[in-house]
């Protein structure tokens, strides 16, 4: 008798055990099951009849996701009741690598999710971590207390100064790098933030691992839809992200890119 293949990339139903409001539009979803994965990888979450979207993994055992309510799928995920199921495909993509002794984290929005998971793994591996968070306003700052509970120092930047310092996250990372040079900077957040961090690290000669958000459809490196648009320079000309090859696919090659 032959052995049967175990399809590991089909959707599997995960049972929601806790759905907690983190702020006015963000929820942490915790499931009954665990997932074998790495920080920085993502899953496709499918609600049958609604749709399927990629989400960063916020924790593996049990699986945890952080969902910002911005449209149909994320909204429906917010209304899943405890005890109901969400269909998960993955883990997909390439995550963060644990390198060196010191990691500096830089989070924007739901970017805290994969970075919190990474922080836990880094601490467990005996590394030290520090996190810089950027948000519009105090009410947008997520999980600062969870990082603090891990013993990870937190620098918060808000655009309106309602919490931490006023300004962008790059101000905090600049200070953090100046204070103690990290072996790599790991970031997740909006495109503009990643581009700014990329430039900053290039100037300061810091290795960085940036998790890019793209329009994902197949999640398998097949359809081509997650290729990042080439960024425009200040002079309006097109240039490449310093950390990317031509045709870099966020779903398969990323979402995390790596540059020494």
């Amino acid at each position, binding site marked *: 008798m032959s052995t049967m*293949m175990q399809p590991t990339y089909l*959707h599997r*139903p995960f049972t929601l055990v806790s759905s907690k409001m983190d702020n006015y539009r963000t929820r942490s979803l915790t499931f009954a099951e665990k997932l074998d994965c790495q920080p920085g990888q993502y899953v*496709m979450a499918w609600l049958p009849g609604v749709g399927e979207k990629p989400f960063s993994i916020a924790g593996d055992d049990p699986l945890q996701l952080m969902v910002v309510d911005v449209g149909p799928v994320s909204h429906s995920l917010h209304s899943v009741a405890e005890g109901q199921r969400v269909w998960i495909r993955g883990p997909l993509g390439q995550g963060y690598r644990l390198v060196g002794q010191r990691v500096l984290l830089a989070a924007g929005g739901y970017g805290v999710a994969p970075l919190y998971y990474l922080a836990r793994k880094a601490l467990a591996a005996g590394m030290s971590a520090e996190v810089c968070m950027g948000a519009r306003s105090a009410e947008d700052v997520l999980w600062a207390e969870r990082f603090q509970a891990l013993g990870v120092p937190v620098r918060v930047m808000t655009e309106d100064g309602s919490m931490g310092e006023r300004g962008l996250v790059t101000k905090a990372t600049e200070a953090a790098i100046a204070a103690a040079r990290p072996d790599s900077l790991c970031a997740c957040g909006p495109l503009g933030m990643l581009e700014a961090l990329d430039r900053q690290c290039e100037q300061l000669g810091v290795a960085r691992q940036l998790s890019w958000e793209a329009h994902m*459809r197949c999640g398998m490196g*097949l359809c081509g839809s997650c*290729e990042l648009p080439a960024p425009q320079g200040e002079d309006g000309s097109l240039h490449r992200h310093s950390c990317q090859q031509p*045709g870099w696919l966020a779903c*398969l090659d990323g979402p995390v890119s790596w540059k020494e």
Partner: protein
Amino acid sequence: MGSADLTCRLLGLEMKNPIVLASGIIGTSSSLFLRAAQVGVGAVTAKSCSLQPRAGHPNPVALDWGAGVINAIGLTNPGAEEEVHLLAEGRRILEPYGVPLIASIFAGTVEEFGQVAALIAQARPHLLEVNISCPNVADEFGTPFAAVCESAAAVTESVRRAVGKDLPIAVKLAPNVYNIGRIAAAVVEAGADAITAINTMPGMVIDAHARRPVLHNRTGGLSGMAIKPIALRCVAEIAHAVKVPIIGTGGVNTGEDAAEMILAGATAVGVGTAVWYRGVEALGTIAQELGAFMQAEGIRSLDEMRGQAIR
């Protein structure tokens, strides 16, 4: 000991190896064409394009079901006009690598196939692939053009008339027919210079817990490992029926798979889903593995192997 010769002549195209990026897989931008060329592919096929832009289907559009992939991307494309620019740019970028560019088109009526072909011809691709697996919207049952000799031939003639003699045409056939050899003969008779076979096999993946099909589109096309024996059988039937070159496509994941395709009668070998299993690098790795296989087996050229399994 000299190494095996992987060079491949497909109609007028000179390829450094027989591996062709299959249509619809990362063939959506000139930077992706470039990446395929940089990892060592022999030729690149662009995503199929239609007269008007198409957004495609909502997610889920694809998944790995264990023995292969199913997809219903929905033929997302920017429309023929935009595609002409993309192809022209792609040709320019691929030139230094010596990698030919194959365009791919589809349409819902025989006439529209001609229209799209005429537009795309402006970009001067090295070969025009005609994807006839789409439903014939003019037929009362929506019978796919690829299913019936007459409609497959009619599309081929329409495209031939539209592009004239200078641009070679490959017609891409579907596996869910009982007579692929006869269909190949009909399209060759109607003016096709080559055959690409196969497109995906129609299927459905159901999630028992969700009690519904996983793809938003319910049905989709199967590709990858599961369809390799179907593709090999189709290529063998076509090779028996016609003399034109075949781009053998379906489930090729390794150099040995590519060798099997050539042994079944293929001139070049399409590779798609392997990008999921082995990354974009697969497009070059498979060619290298094919070379190593030929070397180990004492096979000097592709010609020596071609069709050997079906004699």
